[in-house]
C-alpha cells in the first residue's frame, strides 16, 4: 500500500504549544503536527518536525472514548458503560473529527479513529504525547486499513438521535453493522427504525430493541463474538479470503484473557497489538464453522489478520 495513503489515514496531532516543546515532541517520536496558524508560523524553521496550519472550525468534536464502570449506580446488568464513538464515525464518514483527550487515554482515541478509517485530529496534553506517539508508531506500518467493513446488519440511518443511540448500543454489543441506504441482500438483517418490526416506540427502550435485533439476527449468524470481557469492541474489515479483526480495549487497564470467534474457517493468522511486540493468538482452532482464538493480553488496540 502507498505509504502516503497510510499516513493520510493516521490521525493527526493538533498541538497548540510553541517551538519550545519541540524536544517533548521529538521524545514522543512525533514528526508532524497541525497547529493554529499563528502557532504554526512560530514553528517555521524547527528541524525534524513539520507543521501544518489547521483550523478546528467545522470539525465534529467527539467525546473521550472510555469505560464508565458505574459501580455506585443501580443497573439492570453488571456491564460497564462504554463511551465509543463508532456510531459518530460511521454516521458521518466524510466528516473531519476532533478529539481532545488528555493523558494516556489519547492512545485509544487514535486507535479508534484509525480502526474506523476516520479523518481525525487529536489534541492532547504533555502527558498524552508519548502514548500518542507510541500508538501512531504502532499504527503506521499496519497495511490494509481501507478494506471494506464486514457486517451482519445493514442499518438505514434516518439521522435521528434514536437511531444514533441504537447504533451506539449495537456497536457496543459487537453486533456488526454498516450504514446502508437501502436493504442489502448480502447482509443478514436490515434495521430501520419505524419499519420491519422496529418501531420508534420500541426505541424508547434501546436495550430491549437491541435484544430484539440480536434475536432476529441469531447468534449463530454473527460474524464476530467476543467472550470473557465486556470492555472490548470488535470490528471486522476484509476482502474475500482475508479478514482483519480489530479489537479496541476501552478500559484504562489491559484486558487479560478474552476469546474471539469469527464466523468462517481461516487456518492462517498474524497478529499485531499495541505495546506487545510478541503478541500471538493462543488456543487457535477452527471449530463448528468458525475460527476461535484466545488473546491473553490486550493493551489498547490489536489487529488479528485471518486468511484462508
Amino acid at each position, binding site marked *: 500500500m502507498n505509504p502516503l495513503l497510510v499516513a493520510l489515514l493516521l490521525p493527526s496531532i493538533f498541538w497548540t504549544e510553541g517551538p519550545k516543546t519541540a524536544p517533548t515532541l521529538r521524545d514522543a517520536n512525533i514528526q508532524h503536527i497541525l497547529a493554529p496558524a499563528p502557532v504554526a508560523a512560530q514553528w517555521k524553521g524547527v528541524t525534524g518536525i513539520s507543521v501544518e496550519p489547521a483550523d478546528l472550525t467545522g470539525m465534529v468534536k467527539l467525546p473521550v472514548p472510555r469505560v464508565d464502570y458505574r459501580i455506585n449506580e443501580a443497573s439492570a*446488568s453488571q456491564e460497564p458503560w462504554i463511551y465509543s464513538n463508532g456510531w459518530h464515525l460511521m454516521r458521518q464518514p466524510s466528516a473531519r473529527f476532533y478529539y481532545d483527550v488528555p493523558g494516556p487515554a489519547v492512545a485509544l482515541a487514535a486507535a479508534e479513529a484509525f480502526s474506523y478509517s476516520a479523518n481525525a485530529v487529536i489534541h492532547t496534553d504533555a502527558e498524552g504525547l508519548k502514548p500518542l506517539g507510541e500508538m501512531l508508531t504502532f499504527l503506521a506500518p499496519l497495511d490494509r486499513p481501507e478494506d471494506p467493513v464486514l457486517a451482519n446488519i445493514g442499518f438505514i440511518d434516518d439521522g435521528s438521535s434514536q437511531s444514533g443511540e441504537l447504533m451506539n448500543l449495537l456497536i457496543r*454489543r459487537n453486533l456488526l453493522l454498516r450504514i446502508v441506504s437501502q436493504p442489502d441482500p448480502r447482509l443478514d438483517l436490515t434495521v430501520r427504525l419505524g419499519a420491519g418490526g422496529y418501531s420508534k416506540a420500541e426505541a424508547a427502550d434501546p*436495550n430491549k430493541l437491541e435484544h430484539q435485533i440480536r434475536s432476529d439476527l441469531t*447468534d449463530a449468524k454473527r460474524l464476530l463474538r467476543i*467472550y*470473557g470481557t465486556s470492555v472490548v469492541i470488535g470490528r471486522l474489515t476484509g476482502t474475500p479470503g482475508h479478514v482483519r479483526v480489530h479489537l479496541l480495549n476501552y478500559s484504562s487497564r489491559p484486558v487479560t484473557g478474552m*476469546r474471539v470467534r469469527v464466523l468462517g474457517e481461516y487456518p492462517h493468522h498474524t497478529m499485531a497489538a499495541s505495546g506487545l511486540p510478541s503478541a500471538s493468538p493462543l488456543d487457535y482452532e477452527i471449530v463448528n464453522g468458525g475460527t476461535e482464538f484466545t488473546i491473553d493480553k490486550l493493551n489498547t488496540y490489536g489487529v488479528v489478520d485471518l486468511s484462508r
Partner: protein
Amino acid sequence: MDRRTFLQIAAASPLLASEPAIPNYRIVSRYPKPAHPAMPGPYRGHAVRVRSAHSIDAASGVENASVVRQMLSAGVRALTRETKDRDAWSHFISSSDIVGIKVNCSGAPNIMSSPEVVAGIVENVMAAGVPAPHIYVYERFLGQLRSVHYDRHVAPGVNIQAVETSRGSIAGYDPDTYVEADFFGEDDTRSNMVRLVSQTFTKIINVPNMKEHQAAGVTGCLKNIAYGNFSNVSRSHRDSVSNTYSFIGTLASVEPIPAKTVLNVMDGLRGVWHGGPFSYDPKFRFYPKQILFGTDPVALDRLLIDVIEEKRKQEHAPSIFDRSPAHIRESGGLDPNFNHFVREPRHIEYASKLGLGVYDLARIQLKEIDL
C-alpha cells in the same frame, strides 16, 4: 410438629409451585461420560456425618486441628468401611494421581474451607503416595485464596493455585469445555471450565462449606463444584431472578467433573445461615461443628438443606424455600426476613434428575458419628 415433619413440609411445598423455566443450554465438552463416574460414585445415596463439640471453639473461632484430623479419619473410614486411613483413602486416590482440592473461599477470611480440614486432606492424599507437587489447593479468585494462607498449613511443594490471577481473566479456563446459555440477553454467553480441572487433574476432592446462599438457597457440594469450576457464572442472577435452579446441576454434570470428583468433604465446622455465600456479619455465622463425607453431592446437599433450615427456624427467619415477593428486597442491609433473590434450593433436586445423586431423604443412608 417435630423438626423432621417441618422440614419435610418445607421441602415438599415448592413442588406445588411451577417449575422454573429451564434456559436453553448448549454443553460443549470433548470428554466422554465414563461408565462408572466418580460422582455420585460408589457410595451413591450414602453419607457420613461426624460431629465433635471440640472441633471448633465458637467464641474464638479457632479450630482444633487434632480433633479435625480424627473427624476426617472417622468419616472416610466409615464411608469406605475400612479400618485404616490409608486403605480408606486408597478408594479414591492412587499415587499416580494429580489431585485438585476444590476449596471454597468466597466468604474468606471469615468462613472458608478450614485450613485444618484442607491440611488433613492433604496429609492423607500424600500418605496415599501422591507427591506434594501433584496436589493443588485451588479456587477461582486469587484475593480470596490468598487471604486464607493455606500455604502455612500444608506441606511445602503443595500448589496453592488461583484460576483468575487477574480478576475476570479467562486465561485459566478451557476454551473448548463450556456451557453456553443466554439468561438475560448478556453478550458473553459462555461459562468455561477451569483448565486445571479438564486438563491437569486426574482426581478432585470437593471441600465446600455449610452456607445459605442468597440465590441458590444453600451452597454446598454442587454449587462449589459447579460455580467454583466455571467462569462467568454470576450472570445467572439479575434483579430478583436466579437461574441457579438448573445452572448449578448443568455445570456440575459437564464432563470431566463427574468423572474426576471422587470425594466430597463438606466442612461444617462453622456455617452461614443468612447473607451467604459471604460472611461479613458475624451474627449470621453459626457452628454446626460437623463434617459430612460422601461421593454423592446431592445426598450431602440434601442434608445441608436441613442444617440451614433448622438454624433459620431457630432464628425465626423465613424458609429458604420461601418464594414470597413480600420477602424480596433488592437493596439495603442484611435482614433475615428479606433476601435479594428468590432462592432456588431445589437446584439440588434438579441435579438429582441429571443423575448426580439421591435427593429423596428416605433413600439417603446417613451414618452419624459423634466424637
